[in-house]
């Protein structure tokens, strides 16, 4: 980047707000998806909305792209920097600004960790519902960008259901406030589309989140089955009985064994386990929990463990939440896929995945948010074996086609980012994508806000909406249509 531009950035954020050291820059080359790397042109660490605004304004005036980044735990390359752009790392904007319990909301800066929100209000009996597995280390700003879920989103919804308002810096440097403690702010639901837009529409600088009362009762059981199909039948039985648990998680033999090696949760050695959690008022939970047990027995559970203490409950969850990291114990490398299927298609999709595993020779473990159909196949490979990393990626891509064949989605919570942009046209036709790009053009006509993410093809915003036409950058060979 030109020195004059870097000097202007330094004037805005100060010298200690710039990352220049080569070794330090390395940290910012990638997010949680380490296979996608790019050295940023510059990294800034702003401490206020005003600094973010000034940086974005400068980028707008000079046509320099920018990418916002939180803790960098994303798994789709959404926060991968632009080589000629500015990476705006929001980790220093990590203050809790206001706790407003009478209105059951909290206002935070984007760098605040997810779990710290619940911790801040826990003593008063409140919590923040979305609980991604990475909640200890992921920030709210990233949650907003990705519309993060978590194990408990089956009952409580995703980030979009819990964000009441935001302050955001638009790609031209204007600051807007959307929503607030009151519901139903009049106007288009820009908040609804901004949450989950993967940092391509604006940089969010303040977030007001909805808080819930902690449930009076929580009961958790772990049921073991001798097949994933039997476990799937139990899930259907629970939902069919009119019960919406707080969470229903499934693990298969591969991931059970990995979790056992890593954190020793003492899970039964079996082909499938379900973790079912109910929460709510005491009367509801105890009555419905008995019904869940009956359903598991009817579905031929070979073992049922009921958490009698908080420690036991924590052990179940530790085993589940450690599943990704635990795969490192059983395989040198692994690729985490994120796809969604209608829950009822589980047996069919899992048998296709098993056949694929056999055909490719790669071990595939499955962790599954069974209540809402979000599948996380973990494709194991050894990068020391030539060609196996590529094979793993092909296998992971093929699993997405199974999800789409079943009527599902290419991503349930990790986002499209840079990684899956090429898959988006398998799910949406040109007209669908064109319509989404109309939103992008309304926010970012200059195409400088996290460019190259989500959509496979850039779109010039001066174009008349309509069926796909070849983009000038494609014609000149500068961009490629995947």
């Amino acid at each position: 980047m030109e020195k004059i531009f870097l000097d202007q950035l330094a004037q805005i954020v100060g010298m200690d707000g710039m990352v220049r050291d080569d070794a330090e820059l390395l940290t910012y080359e990638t997010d949680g998806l380490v296979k996608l790397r790019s050295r940023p042109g510059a990294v800034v660490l702003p401490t206020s909305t005003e600094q973010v605004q000034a940086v974005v304004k400068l980028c707008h005036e000079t046509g320099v792209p920018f990418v916002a980044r939180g803790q960098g735990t994303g798994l789709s390359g959404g926060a991968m920097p632009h080589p000629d752009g500015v990476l705006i790392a929001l980790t220093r904007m990590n203050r809790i600004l206001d706790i407003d319990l009478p209105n059951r909301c909290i206002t935070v800066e984007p760098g605040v960790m997810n779990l710290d929100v619940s911790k801040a209000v826990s003593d008063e009996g409140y919590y923040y519902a979305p609980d991604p597995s990475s909640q200890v280390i992921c920030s709210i700003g990233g949650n907003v960008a990705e519309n993060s879920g978590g194990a408990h989103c089956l009952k409580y919804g995703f980030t979009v259901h819990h964000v009441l308002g935001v302050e955001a810096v638009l790609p031209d440097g204007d600051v807007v406030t959307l929503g607030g403690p009151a519901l139903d702010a009049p106007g288009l639901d820009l908040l609804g589309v901004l949450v989950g837009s993967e940092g391509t529409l604006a940089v969010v600088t303040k977030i007001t989140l909805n808080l819930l009362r902690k449930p009076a009762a929580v009961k958790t059981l772990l049921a073991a089955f001798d097949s994933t199909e039997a476990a799937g039948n139990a899930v259907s039985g629970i939902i069919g009985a009119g019960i919406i648990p707080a969470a229903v998680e499934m693990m298969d033999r591969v991931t059970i064994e990995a979790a056992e090696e890593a954190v020793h949760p003492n899970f039964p050695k079996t082909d499938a386990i379900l973790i079912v959690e109910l929460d709510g008022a005491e009367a509801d939970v105890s009555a419905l929990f008995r019904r869940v047990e009956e359903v598991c027995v009817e579905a031929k559970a070979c073992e049922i463990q009921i958490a009698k203490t908080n420690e036991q409950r924590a052990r179940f969850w530790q085993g589940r939440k450690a599943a990704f990291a635990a795969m490192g114990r059983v395989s040198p490398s692994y690729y985490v896929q994120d796809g969604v299927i209608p829950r009822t298609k589980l047996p069919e999709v899992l048998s296709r995945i098993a056949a694929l595993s056999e055909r490719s020779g790669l071990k595939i473990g499955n962790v599954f948010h069974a209540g809402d159909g979000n599948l996380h196949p973990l494709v194991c490979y050894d990068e020391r074996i030539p060609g196996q990393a590529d094979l793993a990626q092909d296998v992971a891509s093929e699993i997405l086609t199974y999800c789409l064949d079943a009527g599902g989605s290419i991503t349930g919570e990790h986002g499209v980012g840079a990684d899956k942009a090429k898959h988006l046209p398998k799910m949406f036709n040109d007209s669908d994508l064109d319509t989404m790009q109309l939103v992008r053009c309304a926010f970012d006509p200059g195409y400088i806000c996290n460019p190259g993410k989500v959509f496979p093809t850039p779109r010039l915003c001066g174009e008349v909406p309509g069926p796909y036409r070849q983009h000038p950058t494609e014609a000149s060979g500068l961009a490629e249509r995947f």
Partner: protein
Amino acid sequence: MAVLSPSVLVEQSRSRVGQSVVRASTEMDLTDGMHPRIVVEPSTADDVVATLAWASAERLTVMVAGGRSKQGWGAPASSIDLLVSTARLNRIVEHRHGDLTATVEVGATLASVNRELARHRQWLPWDPPWSDRATIGGIVSTNDSGPRRHGYGAPRDGIIGVSMVRADGELAKSGGIVVKNVAGYDVSRLVTGSFGCLGVIVTATFKLSPIASTSRTVAVELDSLESAESVVRSLSLSALTPTAMELVTAAGQNRLLVRFESIEEASAQQSQEACSLVGSSGQTEVLTGEEEANLWRQHGVHWSGKPDATLLKLSCAPAELFPLLQFLRTVSRENGLEYVAAGRASLGVVDISLEGSIAAQVRMIQLLREQLTVGRGSVVVRNGSVTLRRKIDVWGEIGSGLRVMKAVKSRFDPDNRLSPGRGPGGL
């Protein structure tokens, strides 16, 4: 644009709108005192595509009508050439009961959809006004909701996919049929509550809820707004999980309806606990079965019983609701207005039905708005006479986001032909 007479327009449209039924406007189609020049009733997505493409070529302004329960909502439209009636788009496309989702065409009424879903003991958990004739399209386009929003959320919380036809006649979809899905932008939420100003929705997909096996409602009669506030506060702080917590307040009346829907023993126990919490603050009665159903039917009359009354929607930060209701009471008395406020006591969203002179109503709306700032509350005129809706900005202040909303509108509808002027913020 050459202005063609309605009869010429009807003639010209016949080969251009697919298999749609084309007809002249009747009394039923009168909107904001205007007759549309032509009414088209498509019965397939292809028909809607053809109709909108034709409207685009002829530069016709377009409005959509469903069950006409909310035809007078929003700012009065500035012009209506073409009224697209969704009456024939009324099928349930698919009920995936094992997955708790359903895809429906927008012209189906909520009541008819829920009758069908009930075959598998599931439902779209909404109870907005006029649900016998309100259509899915109208409810989604206004993001309207009723008492059960407390427990189940608003349409924007339950929508997971949409297919719509843009102003230029392109069919586009967003989201899908699975509950968890972050692929692409969430255009479904953007069109929810957009008052038809971004496109014509053809089908929408929703997550569903199981129908609870029993329901009980605790009706609490209270002697003052102060005691209502204290009861609402203690219920909100309790571990109880009601599906509705509905306040009704008018001069001389304060009543709270707290509903528990679950299995028998749980709804019985929770309603008993609610009665204990109310204690001596009010008179409680627990209703179930037909008595309970009647109670909620009567409650619905607050919105729908007085077609000539103005209907306002007041939203505010939850803790500010009761002070605002006190203010409403005082100002109504001073200005000779009669009102009933009914709504979600714990969420800070209430509907206010208002009767009195137009001048006094306008003054009331202005005074209420002065109590609120953008983001911390709003007063929107939902239903009201054309005179009132022309006298006052029905939406109130939108705030800094308006600029982006206008940009979105101009991208989706560059010629400003879809529900012109009627959408939020005058879009």
